[in-house]
């Protein structure tokens, strides 16, 4: 029994109830419990029989965490996972608060945790992950992360906290260099996942990974992949896992989802060891629901509402590249907290021929971008809910589908408006 934890946990749980009643989730209870019991995460996580594995990368963390969680559950494990968005220490502590008993007992076998790159070192020092997957290094949030090199340095520091296996994207310029270095050091097992050259060539903008200018032209080590995307069409992908090809129907379209699945399979094998069954894993991937707002389709009356996330150049571009033809009814909504709108001009918007609504607090920046892309738009409505309702009140598009391309907060608002109140932060 951990009596020293009782009071902090009791107070933290109460705070959690209060913040949830006020609407939405909050990392504040987690921050609070860590103030009272600084080793809270350490104490609780130490109970997991299969330890912790972490998911990192500029994009795809939530999708991959969801996939690995589904695979582990299909193997009969009880999984503790953090809702996406809660990927900083206080957020993870908040999630743990919701699961532990008053004495700090955690009734799970494995932790599968999504971690923000900037907080990864601190959080991984607390979590002591057995294995980690790093999905990609992309140009992302430069107002806080600055340069891709700096992000690659964060991942290098995080890798130092991993104890057994690191799973890396072979097609990522920075991660391939990191993996070669880790393989040379020999402390960690380095596993690769990848994308076959033909698949990569057929992708309009590849994987939108950052270039590593300092190491371009350096000799490449032989990197044998554990899992490789060898074919891909819409939401169906063929992944070769240790030489065995499997066709997998994923829950969302796009090469980025297929590559995330290859990473998820590789991390799952590392996490489950001898218990890992590829057939179980593939079945789990096929029966998986989409993560909130990442290629999710919601049926509303006589039409579908598809939600695509645009939280960075890479996520916007990969989602546009994955579109099933030219969408005939589109809304794009931009968040207030997207501080520097410049990156919108790095995106190729030629997949869009017209946009019905530009929305969100920074709708005007989307409008300006569309003007310069020569893509007409019909309406400006800064309230995403109002824009969505107006679309639903309008004529049914020929495709029967409204495509919503939404920044993170607008995605949450749109889902809530459509009646999905079990929001990811709220599930913490």
């Amino acid at each position, binding site marked *: 029994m951990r009596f020293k934890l009782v009071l902090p946990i009791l107070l933290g749980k109460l705070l959690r109830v209060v913040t949830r009643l006020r609407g939405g989730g909050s990392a504040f209870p987690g921050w609070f419990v860590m103030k009272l019991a600084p080793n809270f995460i350490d104490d609780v996580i130490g109970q997991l029989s299969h330890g912790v594995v972490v998911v990192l990368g500029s994009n795809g963390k939530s999708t991959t965490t969801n996939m690995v969680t589904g695979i582990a559950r299909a193997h009969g494990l009880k999984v503790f996972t953090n809702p996406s968005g809660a990927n900083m220490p206080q957020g993870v502590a908040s999630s743990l608060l919701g699961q532990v008993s008053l004495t700090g007992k955690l009734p799970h076998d494995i932790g599968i945790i999504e971690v923000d790159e900037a907080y990864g070192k601190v959080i991984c020092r607390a979590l002591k992950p057995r294995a980690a997957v790093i999905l990609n290094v992309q140009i992302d949030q430069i107002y806080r992360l600055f340069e891709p090199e700096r992000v690659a340095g964060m991942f290098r520091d995080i890798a130092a906290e991993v104890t057994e296996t690191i799973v890396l994207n072979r097609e990522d310029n920075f991660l391939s260099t990191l993996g070669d270095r880790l393989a040379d050091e020999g402390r960690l097992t380095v596993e690769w996942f990848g994308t076959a050259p033909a698949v990569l060539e057929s992708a309009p903008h590849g994987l939108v990974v950052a270039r590593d200018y300092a190491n371009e032209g350096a000799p490449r080590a032989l990197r044998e992949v554990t899992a490789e995307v060898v074919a891909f069409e819409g939401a169906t992908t063929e992944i070769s896992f240790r030489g065995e090809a499997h066709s997998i129907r994923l829950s969302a379209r796009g090469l980025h989802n297929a590559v995330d699945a290859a990473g998820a399979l590789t991390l799952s094998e590392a996490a489950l060891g001898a218990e890992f069954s590829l057939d179980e894993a593939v079945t789990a991937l096929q029966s998986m629901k989409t993560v909130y707002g990442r290629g999710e389709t919601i049926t509303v009356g006589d039409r579908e509402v598809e939600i695509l996330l645009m939280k960075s150049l890479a996520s916007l571009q990969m989602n546009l590249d994955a579109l099933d033809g030219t969408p005939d009814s589109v809304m794009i909504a931009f968040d207030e907290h997207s501080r520097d709108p410049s990156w*919108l001009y790095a995106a190729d918007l030629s997949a869009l021929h017209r946009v019905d609504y530009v929305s969100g607090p920074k709708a005007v920046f989307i409008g*300006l971008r569309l003007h310069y892309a020569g893509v007409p738009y019909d309406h400006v409505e800064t309230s995403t809910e109002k824009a969505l309702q107006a679309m639903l009140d309008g004529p049914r598009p020929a495709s029967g589908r409204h495509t919503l391309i939404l920044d993170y907060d607008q995605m949450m608002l749109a889902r809530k408006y459509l009646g999905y109140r079990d929001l990811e932060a709220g599930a913490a």
Partner: protein
Amino acid sequence: MSALTLLELYPGHLMMNGDMGNAAVLKRRAELAGLGLVVVGHEPGEPLPDDVDFVSIGTGPTSAQAVVGSDLPVIGPQLRAWADAGVAMIAVNAGFHLLGRSLTLPDGTRIEGAGVFATTTQPRAERTVTDAFVVDSEIAGRLVGVENQAVSVTLHDQRPLGRVVTGRGDDGKVEGAISGNAIGTHLHGPVLALNPALADHLLTVATARRGEKYETGAAHAEIDAVARQAREHLVRGIGVAVDAAA
């Protein structure tokens, strides 16, 4: 008249913050005015076109600056000749520093710049990120954008682009540089998308060099109203007006 030519320097290297949008803005505004504009890229080691009407260069990570630094001595003389001949140039952040006399990278590496601007650039430990970066210029009035840089720029008998209203700019007082029709700045957004007056200044001088006229119309005015709303959005809540006092 034949199409205008815009030379985009190192688009594969200096592409970190959407400054390629400046070329897209000039192209779109030219086309709306009935003028053709062709964008030509240049990467290290490649030949330059014979003649250009515009040069655009954006920002990139330190590693990319180090790589293109080896190409600058090769193309520097041509860039200076074009600048002397009045070619319109827009150079943003790292691109601005690289078109100066010299640039010192954070690891101490010194890069000889193209010498279009009489500037020297030194690294700073602290990065400046300004969500509403406001500069008052003579050529295009109040400019609004976003700042994200970690340098000090020293001007050597060099005219700045303008005076800092918010943010840091070159040294906390003045921002950017202007030599003839060449403009260097730390303004992102991209700068020409948010500030069409500056884009029109460049289009006007570039067409005048050819003895032609650039005239805006209703389509430009429609975009300009949207750009103004975007500038208003950025300065909202910081107590700075979107237009400078007359």
